[in-house]
């Protein structure tokens, strides 16, 4: 197995500094919808300028470079242990190069490790062995502002009149969007997981955010709910940065996983507009990024 540290460093740099085209496209469309002269339109104009600037200058889009969350799919023959070492080395080097802010803080002492390496959960790395001979490493950088407004509901929820069905899911998601207001750096994107246990549901809600902004859920019922939730979230009028306006949520991605008979969780991961996720694909000697 070859050493991929420098290729992984490039993945981190690319993710932190270069917003994916599907996200930028959604932001541009949102900008067009806001009223000329409004604070909402001004905010989106600033955001789009910032996106162009960081792509050009190779600097972080946002100073909160977030939790580095890696999703690794490796073919037989790769060593997850060695990949982990290489990922950690790349993350530490990216921090030295100012592509990442030192973000790993000891929860007891309050001490920042200074290099983004914490315990075995920081950075977060999910491994999955796959068929074929292609290694893919997806990286999501998720900032604290949007992570803090994520929410998990256990249905039924009496105060929301949310039962164990898709109408209950809808109620929970809209409640979470309202509670978030502009604090998660709206306009945001919603990753929603139905089912699972508390832990797996949060992971699934983040995995849902790996989907392209403009794709369609293969399940027609979930596809319809995704569209409806995006539309209704925007009716709330929270707007960019919570300034009021048309664009509060630019996309909703829902996934359903199996659950216990006793549990029905709805988990919402809110992603800020700085929706940083990129992929590295390794086949033989060839390494590409998208």
């Amino acid at each position: 197995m070859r050493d991929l540290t420098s290729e992984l460093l490039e993945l981190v740099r690319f993710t932190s500094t270069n917003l994916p085209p599907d996200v930028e496209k959604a932001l541009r469309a949102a900008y067009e919808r806001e009223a000329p002269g409004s604070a909402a339109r001004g905010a989106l104009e600033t955001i789009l300028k910032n996106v162009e600037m960081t792509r050009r200058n190779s600097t972080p889009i946002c100073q909160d470079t977030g939790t580095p969350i890696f999703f690794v799919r490796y073919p037989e023959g790769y060593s997850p242990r060695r990949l982990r070492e290489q990922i950690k080395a790349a993350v530490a080097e990216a921090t030295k190069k100012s592509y990442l802010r030192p973000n790993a803080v000891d929860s007891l002492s309050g001490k920042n490790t200074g290099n983004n390496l914490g315990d075995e959960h920081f950075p977060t790395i999910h491994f999955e062995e796959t068929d074929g001979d292609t290694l893919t490493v997806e990286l999501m950088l998720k900032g604290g502002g949007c992570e803090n407004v994520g929410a998990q509901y256990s249905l039924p929820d009496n105060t929301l009149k949310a039962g164990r069905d898709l109408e209950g899911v809808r109620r929970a998601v809209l409640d979470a969007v309202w509670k978030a207001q502009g604090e998660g750096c709206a306009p945001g994107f919603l990753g929603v997981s139905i089912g699972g246990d508390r832990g797996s549901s949060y992971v699934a809600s983040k995995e849902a955010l790996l989907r392209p902004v403009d794709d369609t859920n293969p399940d027609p019922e979930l596809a319809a709910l995704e569209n409806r939730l995006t539309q209704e979230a925007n009716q709330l009028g929270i707007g960019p940065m919570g300034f009021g306006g048309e664009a509060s949520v630019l996309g909703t991605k829902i996934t359903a996983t199996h659950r216990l008979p006793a549990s029905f969780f709805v988990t919402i991961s809110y992603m800020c507009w700085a929706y940083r996720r990129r992929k590295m694909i390794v086949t033989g000697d060839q390494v590409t990024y998208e």
Partner: protein
Amino acid sequence: MPVQVNLPISDDVIRSLQVGDSVLLSGVMITGRDAVHKWLVDTFIKKTRPPAGDDLAVYEAIRPLLNGGVIYHCGPVVAGLDTKEYRFVAAGPTTSIREEPYQGDVFRHFNAKGAIGKGGMGPKTLQACQEVPAVYFHAIGGAAALIAESVKRVLGVYKLDFGVPEAIWVIEVKDFPAVVTMDAHGNSLHETVRRQSKAVLDQLIP
């Protein structure tokens, strides 16, 4: 057109600012977020812990900067950490509501004229804004490179042992862009949006 606001800010200027005003801030300010606010309140305002180490020296150094000044809720990406020739690479605002328990007391204690952050703050801070007077400046969350361009110089740093994001960075800014979303007259854009969006929510999920 944005209003040019120079630091330190007089009470007259603060009172003239209204919710919705775009401003360009210029002058010297300090950053401070979760660790700094808790440290200031515990050590110098509520005095639940005695000053230790360089606490008193840092307090004396930042007092004149906060008097008439503003505190920026920001945990920057900083280059030049090894050479101490510091440069802000990315420096957008962090979510301000976490400082809600502390902010009003910090404004009063230091006669600070405002905070810069994102997401807005709550009733305690709005109350202090009316008393001191002070305002809340909303910067564009995530616009980190653009805002870093307005940071002309890093003049120094205190409490680096809090970590790079949590340290007190003393910076000179020119035309730092922000929008007033809470003013000294009791108005809060965040309160308005929250109320209006709640009415819509109640219709969507009756």
